[in-house]
């Protein structure tokens, strides 16, 4: 539908720019908790406006209200300075609002073209007019520099490409206000650069972009303005050129934060884990690991850098016994652990913080204390001739709650009731408490806020300082760079390079991660 253009005078010359979005005094309460508390928020037409906040600060809630997924309890929304009532996503789309979700909403075995037009297909009598659709999409993709092959199946294209499909989907539906929800979380540095230029193209063509993020650097390079939200309230709205990383971080968290980790030098100790030519298949039966060679020593953190889906999950699963290797040798402190069961491997001294805590790390329907003994419930301390010793299980839980500062109503609360950060603390407490030789931490801070991330990084460094070997798998390059003593880059199931974090750059890592072999820097 055609949009009412606001008064022409505000376009040129006049100080005040036209507003694309204005949200006034938005309040939204969930179960008595104010997710949005009297939030007012303005986005000028043609700018890239970042919405910064920790997890649970209320930025997603606010954008879901704008996109019609939730209704505000109070407050008012104006789109292009006209009051709008948005009660479902279709109304938002009709008003020219599009959302690129963090988890893509694509049909894997449809082509790019089919995905873009899905639900908005142009018709020719009884059938779909594919020609018309592909012409329109090609015009759009040329206009905004979104190059993509319309006939590929979505499951065959990279994550970065899939994101372009999502962007085209919103443009095809006539969006001129685009909301991006944490768009860089899954991208390589090169893909992030490309996305940045796409966003700039969009705004130079008159579109407006709202960017939900918790990454400070990203805001400084991409956005024009930033609104910081903390605990459901707006702290401040700033022009990006007038601010810096430290100021933004403090506003976001509400206290001074140390962005730089204090990492002491540490001599590495004896060899703990060594992998020789380890090969494994993925769930579909395709080769996922093509002969991995890797060594991890005591007192060092080895970071595995790579784009999601290059064999990281399979590598961790093989080491922890969750997946059988096809061939190869795995030695833990002199013992061959190939072919052992998960429990035997755990008992030999490998602790594992899994990449997906909801699926693997915890049992939501069980209590915190039960979750804290999930892999030790059978030990003498907790189990007497088949009967559980509830007293010692609870005492154990109380000890860990104190030691790791897990915020919970009680040790008998269902772990479901805890926040994501505290659930992760519980997992880490359980794994570290077993005094492992090797700690495998896979995406240990995914989805957590700055405060929890700080705590968890500290714990991982402590393990290293105590002489434990640590294998860190992460898609966040910053995390890899700041924690690791050595970085192994994984690409298509191979370690394609081992680099020293002090002597490398994000650019170089990015090239390695995308399979383009840079000058090989092997550090021993």
């Amino acid at each position: 539908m055609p949009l009412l253009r606001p008064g022409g005078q505000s376009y040129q010359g006049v100080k005040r720019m036209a507003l694309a979005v204005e949200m006034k005094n938005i309040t939204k309460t969930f179960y008595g908790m104010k997710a949005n508390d009297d939030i007012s928020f303005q986005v000028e037409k043609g700018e890239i406006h970042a919405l910064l906040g920790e997890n649970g600060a209320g930025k997603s809630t606010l954008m879901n209200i704008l996109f019609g997924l939730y209704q505000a309890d109070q407050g008012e929304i104006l789109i292009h300075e006209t009051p709008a009532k948005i009660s479902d996503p279709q109304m938002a789309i009709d008003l020219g609002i599009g959302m690129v979700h963090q988890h893509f909403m694509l049909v894997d075995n449809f082509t790019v073209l089919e995905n873009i037009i899905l639900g908005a297909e142009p018709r020719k009598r009884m059938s779909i007019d594919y020609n018309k659709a592909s012409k329109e999409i090609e015009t759009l993709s040329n206009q905004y520099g979104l190059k993509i092959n319309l006939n590929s199946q979505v499951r065959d294209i990279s994550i970065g490409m899939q994101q372009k499909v999502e962007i085209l989907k919103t443009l095809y539906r006539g969006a001129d206000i685009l909301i991006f929800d944490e768009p860089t979380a899954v991208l390589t540095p090169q893909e992030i650069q490309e996305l940045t230029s796409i966003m700039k193209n969009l705004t130079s063509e008159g579109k407006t972009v709202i960017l939900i993020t918790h990454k400070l650097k990203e805001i400084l390079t991409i956005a024009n303005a930033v609104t910081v939200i903390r605990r459901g309230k707006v702290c401040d709205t700033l022009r990006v050129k007038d601010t810096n990383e430290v100021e933004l971080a403090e506003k976001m968290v509400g206290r001074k934060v140390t962005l730089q980790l204090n990492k002491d030098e540490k001599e590495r100790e004896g060899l703990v884990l060594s992998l020789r030519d380890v090969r494994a298949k993925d769930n579909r039966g395709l080769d996922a690991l093509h002969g991995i060679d890797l060594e991890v020593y005591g007192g060092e953190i080895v970071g595995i850098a790579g784009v999601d889906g290059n064999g990281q999950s399979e590598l961790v699963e093989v080491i922890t016994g969750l997946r059988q290797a096809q061939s190869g040798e795995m030695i833990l402190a002199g013992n061959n652990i190939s072919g052992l069961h998960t429990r035997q491997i755990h008992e030999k001294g490998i602790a594992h913080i899994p990449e997906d805590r909801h699926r693997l790390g915890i049992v939501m329907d069980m209590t915190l204390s039960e979750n804290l003994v999930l892999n030790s419930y059978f030990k003498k301390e907790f189990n007497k001739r088949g009967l559980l010793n509830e007293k010692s299980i609870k005492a154990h839980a109380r000890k860990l709650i104190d030691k790791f500062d897990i915020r919970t109503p009680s040790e008998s609360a269902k772990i479901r009731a805890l926040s994501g950060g505290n659930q992760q603390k519980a997992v880490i407490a359980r794994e570290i408490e077993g005094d492992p030789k090797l700690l495998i931490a896979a995406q240990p801070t995914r989805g957590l806020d700055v405060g929890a991330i700080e705590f968890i990084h500290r714990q991982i460094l402590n393990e290293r300082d105590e002489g434990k070997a640590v294998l860190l798998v992460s898609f966040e390059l910053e995390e890899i760079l700041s924690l690791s003593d050595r970085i192994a880059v994984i690409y298509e199931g191979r370690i394609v390079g081992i680099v020293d974090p002090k002597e490398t750059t994000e650019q170089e890592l990015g090239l390695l991660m995308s399979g383009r072999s840079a000058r090989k820097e092997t550090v021993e």
Partner: protein
Amino acid sequence: MNFNMKKHNIGVPFVSIILAMLVGAVAMLLAGYNPVSAYASFFDGIFSSPYLMGETIRQVTPLIFTGLAVAFAFRTGLFNIGAEGQFLVGQLAAVAVGIFFKLPFFLHIPLAILAAAIAGGLWGAIPGYLKAKRGVHEVITTIMMNWIAFILTNYLIRTYMKAESERSMDIQPTASISFEWLSDLFQGARIHLGIVIALLFAFLMYFLLWRTKQGFELRAVGSNSLAAKYAGMNVKRNIIKAMFISGALAGLGGASEGLGVYGYMTISSVFPGVGYDGIAVALIGSNTSIGVILGAILFGALTFGAQNMQMASDVPYEIIRIVIAFIIFFIASSDIAKSILGLLRKIPLRSRKGGA
């Protein structure tokens, strides 16, 4: 912990029962019956004499067993539709031991009951094995196993233990769990020791699930099998174990019927239905031991009271099946009951405000 039903869980079944009875009343009115006198004779048929109460308990007993069987499987993440077949093979095993063994009662009864548990357990473990090792969904296999059990038990009775009529021979008196002193307490009703065994196993199920290492594993596997695997548990073995225990519980129900009520097993042309009713009982009882007991009482009482309603006020038995169906419907769509509960909570609040 979960032995006591949580507060909010009691409200929903209760409201559902009332709603379902209202629907039943409407059905009666439409069909030209008087719902008030029908429900009066219905309740008379359950509570009005020790004999009727004893018979109600008889009706409730097998439902506790099959309800526990389904609830136990649910707790461990499995949908056991095969309680029916496990019940039948359990009954056959118990009756066969009852017929062919000559032992003193203190050995004969336990042996017959044990045989039933093992038979039902194995009947459940086969789908468990197929699920664990071959990934075959237990809903499919347990349904198929029901038919196999149905035909197999009829065949075995007809071939090896047939009496004059279409039933097996009688069990030895030493294997019977029906006692005259107990029947006499209830004016000769067919109540038997099975109810005590049922309550005992309801407690054992609670104890196993919530107090033992094995139960911890079963619950973990049931709620999140990936996390259980990650924590080093043997998921496949636990699935087979869970199905064995579930099947054993249903098999015990068969023993209780065979040794307690009849003393023989009939060649039947239809399924007894207690296994399928067990699914509804587990649902009503939200898969807790105490809930299953209450659900079985409700179900058994409704079924038994309906027979009296038919005799006393000529209202057809099927009306009560409608009521039962609607109880399940309202519990399954618990939002309806919850919204009514919500309204009920609001009313006193409003009147208080108005008074102030």
